[in-house]
């Protein structure tokens, strides 16, 4: 094994597992993380095996495409149906709206393109006279790129359908949901490379719940869990940086400045949860001309956000694990998904189906 891959080192893994076992809480503890990349790392490395019986680890609203409401997908579809080029990230294409997905719209002849970065949308707009719309989804990690293209003076035929969301205030809203006894948060490291630790302190310090920012290698995650359990044992809930090699408490000031110049905080609708105050971003007034919703006047079908029998809303709020859903792996599979969490490759259901998320395999 080469030095660069020591983040999966079995001996260090064993040491952390022993530490976690010693810190096992006596009361049942629910730890929630909010990141598809975390769920992927946890499940692909089989890390739940290292957790004491008294600790549950669930993915909440961690998959950006899964929490994008049907209404916004309907808007993107309606815009594409006007003849505009609609660009978005891969997973978004297959998520169902009220009646159709973008994928189904594409098979009807609409020009829907998968891109790898916001800059690709600019390149597409530069090469055509047609209207080009960038359907921008993602948490704080992807927002700076959306802001950067608008600050760079984009082509006049480019607009943005912005569906960016903010993590820290959403964590507060999750705590307040009924029947949701969240004991601690494992916060996503890449979001904090942008925002740092301060927003968590602002939003969550008075809630007395441990929040540990964790990285994505197997040892990073085990380490973050050990830090959470230590806070629980010591009765000292706080915001703790478990990923200091990548996360500065102040985040990335340049990226934060980009976001702040282009976007302002607004309420946002989360699929499966509903409207959460101050968890979204809308374009500031000087950038209003790049807002796709004002350039296109489209008619939308009646919104249908609920899927009969599908427990995605409970999975997205960390009130259920995928195998609790009666449709999981029976009627709902990655090749014929019913709910958004089976569509998005970062969705808990898709990850559990592919790799098996149960504690003991």
């Amino acid at each position, binding site marked *: *094994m*080469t030095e*660069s*891959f020591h983040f*999966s*080192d*079995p001996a260090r*893994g*064993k040491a952390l*597992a022993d530490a976690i076992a010693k810190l096992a809480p006596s009361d049942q503890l629910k730890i929630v993380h909010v990141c*598809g*990349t975390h769920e992927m790392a946890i*499940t*692909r*490395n*089989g*890390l*739940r*095996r*290292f957790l004491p019986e008294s600790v549950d680890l669930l993915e909440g609203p961690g998959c*950006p495409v899964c929490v994008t409401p049907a209404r916004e997908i309907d808007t993107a579809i309606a815009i594409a149906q006007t003849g505009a080029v609609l660009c978005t*990230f*891969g*997973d978004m294409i297959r998520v169902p709206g009220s009646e159709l997905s973008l994928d189904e719209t594409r098979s009807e002849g609409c020009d829907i393109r998968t891109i*790898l970065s916001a800059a690709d949308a600019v390149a597409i707009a530069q090469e055509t006279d047609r209207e080009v719309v960038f359907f921008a989804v*993602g*948490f704080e*990690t*992807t927002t700076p790129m959306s802001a950067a293209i608008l600050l760079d003076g984009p082509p006049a035929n480019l607009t943005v359908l912005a569906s960016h969301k903010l993590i820290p205030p959403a964590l507060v809203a999750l705590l307040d949901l009924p029947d949701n006894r969240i004991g601690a948060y494992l916060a996503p490291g*890449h979001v904090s490379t942008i925002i740092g630790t301060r927003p968590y302190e602002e939003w969550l310090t008075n809630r007395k719940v441990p929040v540990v920012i964790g990285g994505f290698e*197997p*040892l990073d995650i*085990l380490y973050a869990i050990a830090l959470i359990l230590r806070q629980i044992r010591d009765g000292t809930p706080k915001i703790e940086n478990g990923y200091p090699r990548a996360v500065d408490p102040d985040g990335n000031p340049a990226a934060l400045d980009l976001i702040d110049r282009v976007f302002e905080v607004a309420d946002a609708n989360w699929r499966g949860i509903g409207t959460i105050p101050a968890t979204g971003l809308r374009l500031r007034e000087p950038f209003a001309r790049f807002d796709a919703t004002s350039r296109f006047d489209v008619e939308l079908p009646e919104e249908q956000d609920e899927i009969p029998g599908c427990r995605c809303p409970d999975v997205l709020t960390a009130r259920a694990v995928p195998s609790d859903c009666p449709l999981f792996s029976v009627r709902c599979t*990655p*090749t014929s998904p019913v709910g958004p969490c089976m569509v998005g*490759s*970062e969705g808990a259901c898709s990850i559990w*189906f*592919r*790799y*098996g998320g149960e504690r003991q*395999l």
Partner: protein
Amino acid sequence: MSPDRKDTHITPLHGAGGELMGELLERLILPRFGKEAVGRIGLDALDDGATIALPEGETGELVLTTDSHVVKPIFFPGGDIGRLAAAGTINDLAVMGARPIALTLAAIIEEGFPIPDLERIIESFAAALEEVDAPVVCGDTKVMPAGDVDGIVLNTTGLGIARHAISDAGLRPGDRVLLTGSIGDHGMALLAAREEFSLSTRLESDVAPIWPMFAPLLESDICEAIHAMKDPTRGGLAAALNEMARKSSTCIEIEETRIPMRSAARGLSELLGISPLEVANEGKAVVIVAPEAAEAALRVLREHPLGADAAIVGTVTEEYPTRVILDTEVGGRRFLDMPLGDPVPRIC
């Protein structure tokens, strides 16, 4: 058309069966393959078909396989579509336990394709065949209008003979799982070569005909203990193991730390978010061997340069029939599932 364009680029006339096509065959094909008939009528006869004499005194089963090959880029680090087509067909025979006897080669070429490139491809196809001492006995050329085909498509059919053909479904609980070498090289090298990623790496495709590595194994007594073989091409090791587990209703348990892997393939996979276990290999095989013969089989494989990194990586069990379990490096356990489709890089 400029007067000499037909000398440097493929034109519709090259595929029309007339004088130009004859010239092309004379120049490119016959000197490389023409002299090696395995029957009364071989390629040099340019007849409507070739004959193959049944090998004298040989018993066993004839094995037939066919494959069409497209690859982007056509020339990639470590090989090209010519070597890929030859190795792909020979390896399909090899993992059936069959020695290649003869191959066919059909090319569908886009109008305007540079003839020097075609020459390189044919040269490389011929070189791969020399490694296993098998001839091309017949072939075909078609030219498609520009835009109707992307560069070149090769189709090869391979005929082989096996003492006893080995399927990919004969796994039994207790069997050991052997890999003949490092996993992920071909797929990762090709991904790195794709221009949209602008990556530079020294990783090369593993594309190679693997029959020479298998010949000593299959001609030895160990042959009886080989219960199944498969080459992990499209879909990679993950797809190959899942297919084997499903077909035999067994469970395959693999230890991640034992899978041979080059650090460049591992590094690229971390960068792109694509698992090396889900991308194609073109010079490797999964060999399922009875437990008592596993170490002996490993020794024989390692004696050949292509098998130098061979390793025993897992066991066939009854725990979760039809599924593959991966014991992860850090000490966890998960399913290794069938890849869904072509791997795409992760966004965030």
